């Protein structure tokens, strides 16, 4: 979150479009946000619009208060309350990071290399996250350009490979399951937009303001999510509920000549998306720690945050009770709502009402 970093609009768009894919790719059946029903098609769309509204609200408050980022906005209410808000925001982002590392480890040890030790994957993940952050967010965003191009190519290949086996009749009315199912779908999709806070934090770094790029992120993310949902519904249908990773199964079903299977593309995509999202949240956690800690102690905040997240993810992989409670907490949407809506709204309104703002 270095102010000296400058990111282009296209790079910002690519980075967050990829990070947003995490929700669709890590879908593991009933537990998390459903993407395999026609209800989800409308739910994801409505959730994206809601998220756009929330993002507009937060960035609007930030601008109205004459500040640059949500953290700066929180500090307008005073140093102690600003520090408390920063700690809460950083804590929520830390939870998202743990979720990412945990998903990373779980996917590889359950689907790709079932006999492997989860510890190795957590170690790799932490190493790459730290490396990405050492290289800088600008490098990460530049790389995203190429990765997004790769994503588009992969989706074209997979869609073409699945075309012959898709059953469009599976697409039914989104209202078929009733309004409660639709509302539930909207909520679950909405709370998956945990990257909004990092987006809002990075807006000042974007050349030209970045609002247009942010709009693009919402547009592209919803297109990709809907495409994946349509493919899951029409190709896997009800069978998707029996798959541990339905999107992985979807890629495995794609009929390509050479190579015979393209599930390795899913693996590469999954890795990329996880690592990008994890790196973004690690950058935010690092920023929060540097804001909270004295300069001397904040020197190793990046490594400390990554290692702590790794230890937490390892603990989750060892304890089923801990993991199920953690997943329940993340699926409840509490961290996301706190991070992207409640804290910025409360602190922002307080700052505006108290008149403690530069403008």
């Amino acid at each position, binding site marked *: 979150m270095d102010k000296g970093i400058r990111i*282009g609009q296209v790079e910002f768009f690519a980075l967050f479009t990829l990070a947003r894919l995490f929700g669709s790719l890590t879908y593991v059946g009933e537990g998390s946000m459903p993407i395999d029903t026609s209800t989800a098609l409308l739910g994801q769309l409505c959730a994206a619009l809601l998220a756009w509204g929330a993002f507009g609200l937060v960035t609007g408050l930030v601008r109205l208060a004459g500040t640059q980022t949500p953290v700066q906005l929180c500090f307008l209410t005073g140093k102690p309350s600003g520090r408390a808000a920063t700690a809460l925001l950083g804590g929520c982002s830390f939870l998202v990071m743990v979720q990412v590392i945990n998903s990373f480890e779980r996917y590889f040890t359950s689907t790709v290399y079932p006999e492997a030790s989860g510890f190795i994957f957590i170690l790799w993940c932490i190493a*790459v996250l730290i490396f990405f952050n050492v290289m800088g967010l600008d490098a990460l965003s530049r790389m995203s350009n190429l990765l997004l191009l790769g994503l588009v190519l992969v989706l074209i290949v997979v869609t073409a490979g699945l075309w012959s086996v898709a059953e469009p009749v599976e697409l039914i009315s989104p209202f078929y399951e009733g309004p409660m199912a639709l509302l539930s779908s909207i909520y679950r999709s909405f709370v998956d937009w945990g990257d909004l806070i990092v987006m809002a934090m990075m807006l000042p770094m974007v*050349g030209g303001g970045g609002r247009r790029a942010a709009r693009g992120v919402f547009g592209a993310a919803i297109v990709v999510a809907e495409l994946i949902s349509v493919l899951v519904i029409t190709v896997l249908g009800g069978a998707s509920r029996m798959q541990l990773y339905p999107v992985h199964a979807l890629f495995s079903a794609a009929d390509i000549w050479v*190579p015979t299977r393209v599930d390795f593309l899913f693996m590469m995509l999954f890795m990329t998306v996880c690592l990008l999202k994890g790196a973004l949240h690690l950058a935010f956690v690092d920023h929060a720690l540097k804001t909270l800690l004295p300069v001397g102690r904040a020197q190793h905040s990046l490594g400390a945050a990554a290692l702590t997240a790794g230890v937490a993810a390892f603990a989750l992989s060892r304890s089923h009770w801990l993991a199920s409670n953690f997943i329940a907490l993340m699926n409840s949407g509490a961290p996301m709502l706190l991070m992207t809506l409640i804290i910025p709204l409360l602190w922002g309104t307080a700052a505006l009402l108290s008149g403690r703002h530069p403008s």
Partner: protein
Amino acid sequence: MKMPYFYARDAYQPPSGPEGEAQRLTASLNENLIILRQISGGSDDLIVREFELCGLRLCLLQIEGMVDSLAMADFFIRPLFAAALSNNTTPDAFADYMRNQAIFAIDQQEIGSFSELFSFVMSGFAVLLCDGLSTGYAMGLQGFAYRSVAEPLGEFNVRGSRESFTEALRVNMSMVRRRMKTPLLKMELGTVGENSRTGFCLLYRTDKVDSATLNQIKHRLGAIRLDTVLESGYIQPFLENAKASFFSTVGTTERPDTLCAKLAEGRVGLLIDGTPFALTLPHLFGEYFQGFDDYAHPPYYATMIRLLRYLAFLLTVMLPGLYVAIARYHLELLPPALLYNIATAEENIPFSAMLEVLIITLIYEVVREAGLRMPQPVGMAVSIVGALVVGDAAVKAGIIGAPMVMVVALTAVSAFLVPALYQAITFLRLLLIFAGGFFGLFGITAVLLMVGCNLFARESMGIPVTTPVAPIAPYGWRDLIVRVGWPKLSREQLNVQHLRQEESDTIPHKTEGQEE
């Protein structure tokens, strides 16, 4: 006393020489010669010839083998002895003659200190000292031996010039100047290396260069504290980006025409005395895949060749690693027929796929290195024997499988399409073999992401090396993978400075000086 323009060091710190060098020349020739011998330690290659002329005691200094004897005799000694000087000429009259009437060489300058004296003498000048004068006269009559201009060894071309740089700085400068006859091309000379005092020449187009970039390069050159500089590789690390990487942010070329093309795009060139290569800055990643012939071929063919180079780069870096990863962890990716063939070929091989590829890669590198270092005819023989050993005998002996030979052979040949990246390719290839061997496609993806991030983090003089891909700058796309035709290239001539991130949003689609 004014130094000759080509030794002006306004921008650079003069190297601090041995003690006493900064001392001024005195009016006593004897005293000067004593100091001279003290500083030089009586070096045998310093020729000191004392003589008398018209009542004056003169002394001629030169380094053996660095002055052209014929030019010295014809343009200096003969005219000097034939000069219309009276029998009892005073030192002041001689100084006036030297200053206003005599032209023994175009590069003729007065010098006032031992530091200047040594600078000139060591560069092949002849220096004349006169008893009674506290100044000397340096004359550019260099005539040392150097390799003549030859064909480039690493940047061959089908069309266009066959000249490459030599080791002599002045010859290299003249080769550039012959191709760019504009006063806008500026050359600045300087020295680097505390004791080697290696000459270098900064070249740039005054109408295109970015002054901040130029100043940064000058500053970095001035800050170099090396005792000896024998090759451009000594200087290159000082001009690199601070972040460590496999990919250099400084370009090299041995072709004067390539250097001229880069100067025309707003880059800065650096020629180092004793090196047949020029350094160019800023250097973008896309430049590795450009060749001089691309601009002589029709655009469609040039584009195809560039695509081939990118493909070859990916192949040579990734193929062995991918092969190992798939053969060890992801056999399900292969079609059954191909899988059967590979399994049949590999069933009797005693090594794992990773060890097998490492062995054959190692053998290949040994053979290649031996071929490079040996005299050319022997080197060729070594390559042929090596190819036979690796290719045929090793397969028959059951040490390696035939598919592996094909993989490594394809990898080796592909590397030659991007010769400037050879070191990076070799190391990355090994890294991916280990990653693929130990972690399969997961390891390969992780390493590629890290290497990619490192590449995208690199900047060359403030310009991200991955531009115009990222940050996106459509302005630069017409000469990246697709090479558009000359009419369009000349209409909107590329200037690398316009690819800076802050400018990429508002690219001036016209170069400076171009009319609206």
